[in-house]
């Protein structure tokens, strides 16, 4: 069996996990002793009219109470440290892991799933730990103590109690195991709701434009009703727990009363003993009920543990190499040899037998239809995915041999979707270069034609960026994202369709700046675009169609040899 990664984090809290229950058990022991003292007060103190005895015993009870309170608080302290600490470590670990896995793996889990792990599942786990330390030890201890005491009073009754406890435990077990299966389903439905809400929030504008709010609400109500039904179908069973335990325990009481009255010799119990036994039975009842109420918490935690382990046990499929040095003499920045790539191993190839070179300091354009595999090429270079076949060389060495962190420091990338982080413009720029000076940042912003709008802010590059850059327009985001990629000191610059929402004038300026940068820094560049105008001045252009290279050449060559290129060219330049 695979080791549970989620549970293994508990090892940091061994001390708390052991000390907590120990202190809790002190309290339980005191609690079990008190009834004995009480019966002494009644049987010895009152019967002998011994006031001194009565008063001292009462003081003893209160002292035990104080001791019990103190040790409980110590236990609670340990429990809070261990459970909250555990939850914190768990979240850190999930988050870290989400940064480690490949993009394919993240997408196969879905972002919603990972987000739920962080916000919900970790909480369920930490609740279970807290409750485990605080209460789980208490219940069995009380049952055991009550059982021992009843054996002392009468061993036959003791066995009856044992039998009853076992019956109740079995019933509890069945209800619990049924419920825990159902909880997985319920959790899934909750994920579903969560996706639904998140979709709705993202689409608020479109939904209103279609005046579909009411339909959305109706749809959601149906989903939430499903959720309610699923929860209630478990509650139908859970609701049995309290009445059944109550019933069984009381049947025990009836049995004792019945046998003592109709078969006096069988138990041979006096009134005081019967009272004591009934008390113990009730104690067992209370303890078992505590356990059953905890079941919900543990069920949830159990379901969460499974989800957590599924995620945490996923090994990163992208393996880093050790190479920390490029071959400076290599003439080629990049070399693809028979590279194939498919998302689900074996099925349809997204990229098929790609062969091309990018010389050092040169530029390469990639053009092709939507879904032809352009972005996949970039994902392979960035090692976001693994090639299914073939080899990629980067500055003379196999791409896979490089240490990934080192490799990524050499490549600068501007993605299709402009992604910004909450913070300031400056903090978003510093991602590309930790120690960049304000001048460098401003220079990069100028290169990306972004400084003209940044400049207008009173706080300039210290202007706030809201989450996901929602306070900027699409074009502004794209410029900032481009500026970030231009700030980074790299050997290879990849621009993935990042001019798409820019106007032609801005694009032209930026393109010229990049060209200059390329010449001055001996930078190699890959530019993916839908626009011929963005690519036609590059050293070489690659036409991709359905995962295959249809043609490579410069603009003039392609107009002669590539019908697809010609067709795009005509479309984009007609009506001139």
């Amino acid at each position, binding site marked *: 069996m695979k080791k549970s990664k989620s549970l293994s984090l508990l090892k940091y809290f061994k001390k708390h996990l052991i000390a907590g229950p120990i202190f809790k058990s002190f309290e339980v022991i005191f609690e079990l002793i008190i009834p004995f003292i009480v019966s002494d007060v009644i049987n010895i103190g009152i019967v002998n009219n011994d006031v001194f005895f009565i008063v001292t015993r009462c003081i003893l009870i209160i002292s035990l109470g104080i001791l019990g309170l103190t040790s409980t608080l110590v236990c609670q302290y340990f429990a809070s440290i261990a459970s909250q600490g555990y939850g914190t470590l768990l979240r850190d670990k999930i988050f870290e892991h989400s940064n480690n896995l490949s993009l394919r793996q993240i997408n196969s889990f879905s972002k919603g799933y990972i987000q739920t792990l962080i916000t919900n599942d970790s909480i369920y786990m930490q609740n279970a730990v807290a409750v485990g330390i605080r209460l789980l030890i208490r219940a069995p201890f009380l049952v055991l103590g009550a059982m021992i005491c009843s054996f002392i009073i009468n061993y036959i009754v003791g066995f009856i109690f044992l039998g009853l406890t076992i019956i109740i435990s079995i019933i509890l077990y069945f209800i619990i195991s049924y419920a825990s299966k159902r909880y997985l389903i319920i959790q899934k439905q909750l994920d579903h709701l969560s996706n639904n809400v998140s979709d709705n929030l993202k689409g*608020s504008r479109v939904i209103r434009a279609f005046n579909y709010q009411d339909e959305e609400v109706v749809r959601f109500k149906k989903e939430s009703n499903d959720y309610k039904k699923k929860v209630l179908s478990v509650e139908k069973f859970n609701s049995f727990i309290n009445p059944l335990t109550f019933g069984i325990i009381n049947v025990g009481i009836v049995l004792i009363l019945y046998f003592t009255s109709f078969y006096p010799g069988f138990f041979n119990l006096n009134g005081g003993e019967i009272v004591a036994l009934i008390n113990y039975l009730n104690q067992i009842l209370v303890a078992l009920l505590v356990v059953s109420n905890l079941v919900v918490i543990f069920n949830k935690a159990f379901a969460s543990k499974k989800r957590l382990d599924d995620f945490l046990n996923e090994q990163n499929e992208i393996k880093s190499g050790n190479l920390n040095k490029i071959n400076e003499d290599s003439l080629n920045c990049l070399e693809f040899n028979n590279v194939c790539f498919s998302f689900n191993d074996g099925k349809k190839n997204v990229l098929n037998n790609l062969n091309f070179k990018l010389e050092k300091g040169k530029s390469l354009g990639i053009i092709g239809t939507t879904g032809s595999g352009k972005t996949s090429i970039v994902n392979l270079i960035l090692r976001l995915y693994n090639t299914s076949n073939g080899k990629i060389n980067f500055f003379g060495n196999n791409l896979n041999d490089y240490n990934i962190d080192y490799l990524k420091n050499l490549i600068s990338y501007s993605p299709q979707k402009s992604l910004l982080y909450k913070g300031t413009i400056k903090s978003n720029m510093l991602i590309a270069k930790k120690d960049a000076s304000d001048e460098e940042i401003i220079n990069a912003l100028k290169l990306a034609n972004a400084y003209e709008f940044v400049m207008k802010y009173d706080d300039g590059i210290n202007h706030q960026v809201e989450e996901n850059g929602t306070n900027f327009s699409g074009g502004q985001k794209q410029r900032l994202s481009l500026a970030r990629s231009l700030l980074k000191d790299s050997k290879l610059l990849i621009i993935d369709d990042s001019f798409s929402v820019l106007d032609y004038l801005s694009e032209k300026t930026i393109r010229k700046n990049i060209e200059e940068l390329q010449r001055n820094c001996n930078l190699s560049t890959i530019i993916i675009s839908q626009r011929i105008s963005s690519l036609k001045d590059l050293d070489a252009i690659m036409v991709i169609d359905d995962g295959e290279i249809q043609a490579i050449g410069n603009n003039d060559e392609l107009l002669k040899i590539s019908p697809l290129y010609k067709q795009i060219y005509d479309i984009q330049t007609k009506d001139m």
Partner: protein
Amino acid sequence: MSKFRFILKYIKPLIFLLVAILFLAIVFVVAQLVIPIISGNIIDYIEEMATSDSIDTILTTISQNILFIVLLIVFSIILQYLFEFLSSYFVQSLVKKFRDDLYTKYNKLAIKDLDSRNKGDLLLREINDIENISNGLIGGFKQFYQGIISIIVIFVIMFYLNWLLAMVIVLITPLSIYISYFIAKKCNKYFKLQASSSGKLSSFSLESLNNLIINKTYNFEDNRNFNFQKLDKELYKCGQKAQFYSTWINPTTRFLNNITYCFVLLLGAFMIVYSDAFIGLGLTLSVGGLQALLVYANSYAKPFNDISATVTELQNAFASFNRVYEILTLDDEVNNGKELLNDDINELVLKNVDFSYDQNKKIIDSLSFNLNKGQRISIVGKTGCGKTTIINLIMGFYKIQNGEILINNKNLYSLNIDKFRENIAMVLQDTWIFNGTVKENIAFGSDIIDENLIIEAAKKAQADNFIRNLKNGYDTLISDNSGLSIGEMQLICIARAILKNPNFVILDEATSNIDALTEDKVTKAFDKLLKHKTSIVIAHRLPTIKNSDLIIVLDSGKIIESGNHEQLIKNKGYYYQLYNSQYE
């Protein structure tokens, strides 16, 4: 509206259920409390039997009593089961109402209010906070209901048995409640902090998951991890305190009840030992009586202990309730307008419109234009010049500060905004694909279920080809991160607009990110679709712009040029430059 009245509003429809549950609780709690009394009687009979001659008659009484207990057990099992289940039903119904209403609210709030809050936090309220309320209620509600009833019943019994001891017990109760309240109030601060910290953490991780590709390509993971851990540590700090201090309540309550118990024992013992002194008060107490009182003292304390044990959940629930309440009491989008168009949008007029997001920097500055039925306006301009804002204003997502927007000569704000929007199809820069099948995504907003019409729309949008190549064709489940390219997602959004077939179309950068071949086809499809329709287009591709009746060039929210293509080319201004840049 006060919170109390707010809650009352939610409970009202469930009032019958609540009464039924109360009734069940009274009956089964009383039944369960009667059982010890009867068994106490049986014990007395058993004692009596040892010294009595008429064993048979006593045995008959005993068997009658036992039979009665058995009946009570069966009776209370059934009622308690119903109580438990109906309580869950009540809680789930209540919580569902909260959840539904919150969702409805998200669809009713002004876009401005949604934009100003972060989505991760809103999601957290809808999912986690509602779950917290449910958890708190399930534990708390049952205990509370059951508890109050048994407290009342036991108090009556105790008072009947011995009023002095009963008074002692009852007098100490307020103390334990006060101390619980005191502790709860103290840690409320930490619960609030905890809720806001976890909100922050949640949006941080959501943002990070969305930006994963940058994390990875910029070696930004360590920085993100570090900052996540920092936020997480803050959550730990207040979480640990909240948990620790709130767990004081239960042991403290139990301790106080222990003291009460001890008081009863001491006082009871004195009553027996110095019985003469108490006779004057009309009080006598036997050993058996004291034992019974002690049992009741314990039962009396039990609900207090139980309720205090659920205090952490209750406080969590309360903090969460406040977060839900905060949203639910926000005002809906103002939709004062009652007027209906009763016709297509024949004329759209903007008159000296001013707008600013922050009352400070004008985004739109005294903008005016006319758009008549069947015309197309293209808006051109640099990034940030206010193009998208114009759409926000025309759609009524944001309110203008000065000027007028007139639709068919009616003020936009006097119209029923929902009905007005129905006339418009919008394709936005940020594609919106929800979790569902391709078919559902295309049919969204048009109530059309005829598969042929859906496929036809997809064909017009040039999306049919790639859709058929998906795993399950039109029934493939998709979402915004299911591996579709941005271009493909955009084609689906276009198909959605085509299927709706409105008379007014707004396109915001709709053709970006689609490859030239597809764009060419889509442009043609649009031209067909836009024919005889009114449209506002924000696009950078000249073929779309060129065919417009009016082109507006915008800079810093002001019109710097306008006219048709030929006029603007003659003008040799910004548009001329822009036009030429494409072919240089």
